[in-house]
């Protein structure tokens, strides 16, 4: 059998390089674990789907009859479907921080922070995991909207960009949630803040009514709300004849920029959660 010394040497050589491949391998290993856990107990995925289905089938159908919201060429139900997808992404991602606090209380975070893994890789893995959850929501909403007669765009390029958009949205809100968790540190405080954050992010956006309908001050807020850019991209990409208000390029640029900023802040704060 090989001696310990030899092995140690070999590992030392390998460990010396702290390369980009290490970074991605570690992020992948952590995301893989999250993925495994999610599918071992998928209850969460299904319970999370109930709310958006109700929004579409109850709220959507009633509001379509009222015809109170000017939605141009498309029906109100079609107009709101991307908004509801964005909403379900927001609602499930914004409570991601709870899981981090839970892991911190258990001691899992301590152990991860002592491994030679970059803080940003730990954060990125959580964002990827949140992206998977968002994707499952997207599949469910696509099915429900299709069954309700919404004309969806199934062009492969559009679908691919929808996936990207869902990932970006989930990544932004889950990382934002992680930042909040690092600041508040306890579950009780987090629950309160999570509730306070979701409503303004949702209602001060173009999710269920167009920005033009809002009073001026709210229009300003909704234009700095990342949620609006997520909804705008989904509306343009998901629907047959969907149009972007801001422009797809701007939507993605804003989302990538915000995520970059969130990732940077979260990586700086992450270690502080155990202090």
């Amino acid at each position, binding site marked *: 059998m090989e001696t*310990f010394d030899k092995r140690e040497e070999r590992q030392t050589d390998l460990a010396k390089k702290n390369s980009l491949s290490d970074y991605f391998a*570690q992020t992948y290993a952590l995301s893989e*674990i999250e993925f495994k856990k999610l599918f071992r107990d998928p209850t969460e995925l299904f319970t999370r789907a109930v709310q958006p289905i109700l929004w579409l089938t109850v709220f959507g159908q009633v509001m379509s009859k009222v015809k109170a919201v000017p939605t141009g060429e498309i029906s109100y139900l079609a107009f709101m479907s991307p908004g509801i997808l964005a909403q379900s992404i927001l609602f499930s991602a914004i409570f991601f921080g709870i899981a981090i606090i839970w892991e911190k*209380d258990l*001691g*899992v975070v*301590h152990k991860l922070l*002592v491994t*030679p893994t970059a803080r940003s890789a730990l954060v990125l893995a959580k964002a990827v995991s949140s992206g998977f959850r968002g994707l499952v929501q997207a599949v469910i909403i696509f099915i429900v909207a299709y069954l309700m007669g919404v004309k969806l765009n199934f062009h492969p390029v559009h679908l691919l960009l929808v996936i990207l958009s869902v990932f970006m949205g989930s990544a932004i809100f889950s990382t934002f949630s992680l930042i909040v968790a690092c600041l508040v540190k306890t579950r009780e405080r987090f629950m309160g803040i999570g509730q306070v954050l979701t409503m303004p992010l949702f209602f001060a956006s173009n999710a269920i009514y167009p920005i033009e309908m809002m009073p001026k001050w709210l229009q300003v807020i909704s234009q700095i709300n990342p949620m609006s850019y997520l909804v705008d991209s989904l509306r343009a990409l998901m629907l047959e004849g969907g149009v972007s208000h801001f422009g797809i390029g701007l939507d993605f640029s804003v989302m990538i920029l915000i995520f970059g900023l969130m990732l940077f802040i979260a990586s700086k704060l992450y270690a502080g959660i155990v202090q």
Partner: protein
Amino acid sequence: MTPSLAIQTSNLTKKFGERTVVDHLNLSIEQGKIFGLLGPNGAGKSTTIKMLTTLLPPSEGRAHVAGFDVEDEAMDVRRKIGYVPQLVSSDGSLTAEENLLLSAKLYRIPSSERQLRIEEALAFMGLVGVRSKLVRTFSGGMIRRLELAQAVLHRPLVLFLDEPTIGLDPVARRTVWEKLKEMNKRFAMTILMTTHDMEEADFLCDELGILHQGVIAAIGGPDELKKQVGPEANLDDVFIHFSGATITESGNFGDVRQTRRTANRLG
């Protein structure tokens, strides 16, 4: 730094606001030794470990672990150490094998060697039969052994243990002790541990440091310290002698809550 020292601190200090938790600590721990950090709740034991494991930046002073500076060369330190926190750190919703595989991947153990190391670790810790069971179904002793296996998979030079047997029954405790002794011998692994258990300190440690209000009140081998206190003294007497009164108003609600929670989860 002398190369034969696994841990060296000079004036290592941690302040939380006005409160100084670790106060100009100077420690030198030789390679291959088992060093026990004793002290009442709130003496600064966990804070010291957190600084040495790069979890907490020191307020003042320096510390070297395995030859690297904990602040400036944190990544190098992390590659050379293993850590089992007082809290339960294995993931309950994964199997024993999945937990080990994650550690192997995070420590970048080459894929050709991963499986071999995992097999060895499972065999050494007596967990082969439960490798595919979810960790949440494990007993406290099994969880601790798995955590140890995860912490040493990459063959660290220094292993940090925060209250390694808290909440374990006597049999499980004894098994953990034996595994620790064996790892220390087999891999010449330096171990720094905190404990409240004097029997554990006596059985395992080559050297003890008694921490009281952030400063080292006494340091030496278990027998040496006993002699200093009196001819018939045991480690309990040593502890009481050097850490001030038997009952001090140290520790806080958070410490107590954390300790009880860990004991509860493992018990």
